[in-house]
């Protein structure tokens, strides 16, 4: 009977994707993308990929939708809910594009379902053989932070670059403007209170994912994503950031992951190893050190990307075009 569950999940994913593409109102489209991300996380949990599922639930389901919604508000303003009157792409052209997409699907489907071997251990046995030497027991963490640590280092560099790209590196984590008229409404009081109640639990969840990630599903990316989710709802609830967490301190948080990662990489070279080749017996400590720093950076960068798109800064001034 479990195949029925899988079939429903896959069918729902395709239907939500179709809705997100074809529905006329942009807001409805983004609203379809949110359960899409959550269902995707369920699908990946079914495929024995809990590490990826946790990250997708926090990022694909939550953060990406929040980013899209904030951007849509900013670009379309009050007209977000309106049905656009603009003529959609002509039917004939849509058909031609559908044919192209179907051809791509046929090609990809042939490769995935027929050309590739139906059962292969892939690189799994080689990871298992070296797992003991990696310092951690979660094979995904071992790949990310040890065997393929180069990729992860560059990935964190990509995050920092994205933040520089949106022009938010020099700025601090910005609070949403406190609108005095909003201040006293019941909703804002309740939302602020609820967020204050949830935030400690979110921080503990993030820390748990980071710590357990060495041996169980979890790790720096999942922890950073969960913390970033907490940061986003704190921004939306209009909570003030602590005074110490501004300017220089924020910039330090943004680069600490990359800096610690690179410092460890070069540091082990000074001890005679290759770049990022951890000395024997120190792997676990170094991995936890790198992951802790990376978690802070990932969380800060993702929240800052969101506030950049939300378009408010500390003074409450919109920075469009600035």
């Amino acid at each position: 009977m479990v195949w029925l569950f899988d079939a429903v999940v896959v069918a729902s994913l395709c239907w939500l994707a179709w809705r997100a593409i074809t529905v006329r109102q942009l807001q409805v489209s983004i609203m379809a993308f949110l359960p899409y991300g959550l269902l995707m996380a369920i699908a990946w949990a079914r495929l024995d990929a809990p590490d990826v599922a946790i990250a997708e639930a926090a990022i694909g389901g939550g953060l990406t939708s929040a980013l899209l919604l904030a951007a849509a508000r900013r670009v379309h303003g009050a007209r977000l809910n309106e049905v656009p009157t603009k003529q959609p792409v002509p039917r004939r052209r849509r058909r031609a594009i559908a044919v192209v997409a179907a051809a791509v699907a046929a090609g990809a489907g042939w490769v995935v379902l027929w050309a590739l071997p139906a059962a292969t251990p892939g690189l799994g046995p080689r990871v298992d053989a070296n797992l003991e030497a990696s310092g951690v027991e979660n094979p995904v963490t071992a790949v990310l932070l040890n065997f393929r640590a180069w990729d992860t280092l560059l990935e964190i560099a990509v995050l920092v670059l994205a933040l520089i790209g949106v022009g938010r590196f020099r700025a601090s984590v910005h609070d949403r403007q406190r609108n005095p008229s909003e201040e006293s409404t019941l909703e804002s009081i309740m939302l602020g209170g609820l967020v204050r109640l949830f935030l400690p639990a979110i921080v503990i969840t993030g820390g748990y994912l980071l710590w357990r990630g060495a041996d169980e599903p979890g790790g720096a990316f999942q922890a950073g994503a969960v913390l970033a989710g907490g940061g986003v709802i704190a921004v939306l609830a209009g909570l003030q950031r602590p005074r110490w967490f501004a300017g220089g301190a924020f910039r330090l948080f943004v680069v600490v992951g990359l800096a610690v990662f690179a410092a460890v990489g070069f540091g082990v070279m000074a001890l005679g190893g290759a770049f990022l080749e951890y000395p024997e017996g120190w792997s676990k400590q170094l991995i936890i050190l790198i992951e802790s720093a990376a978690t802070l950076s990932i969380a800060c960068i993702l929240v800052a990307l969101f506030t950049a798109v939300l378009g408010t800064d500390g003074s409450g001034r919109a920075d469009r075009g600035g």
Partner: protein
Amino acid sequence: MMTAETLYAAGGVGLLALGLYGAIVVDDRIRRVLTLNIMGTGVFMILIALAARSPSGRPDPVLHAMVLTGIVVAVSASGFAVALACRLGPPEDETRPVHDRAGEDDER
């Protein structure tokens, strides 16, 4: 035989194609970022389904690590893309009739 992996792999292929179709068809820049994300998750789903083919029952962790990296890069790229979309300023007036716009939709 239809295993769960093949079902999800086929679903991933379908989402890839839907996302590709959407990315070309939609006319809103924010929604285009969304459709590219659908395309990306389709690819991720294919990779995860491929990782689950292992005969030992233990999925391939290298593919999982690749997808994890991909998710984080995708969200930062999406953030960058929508930030650029905001900088472009307000969209052209969508209430204008189509025939006012020279050179567009000439195929009607």
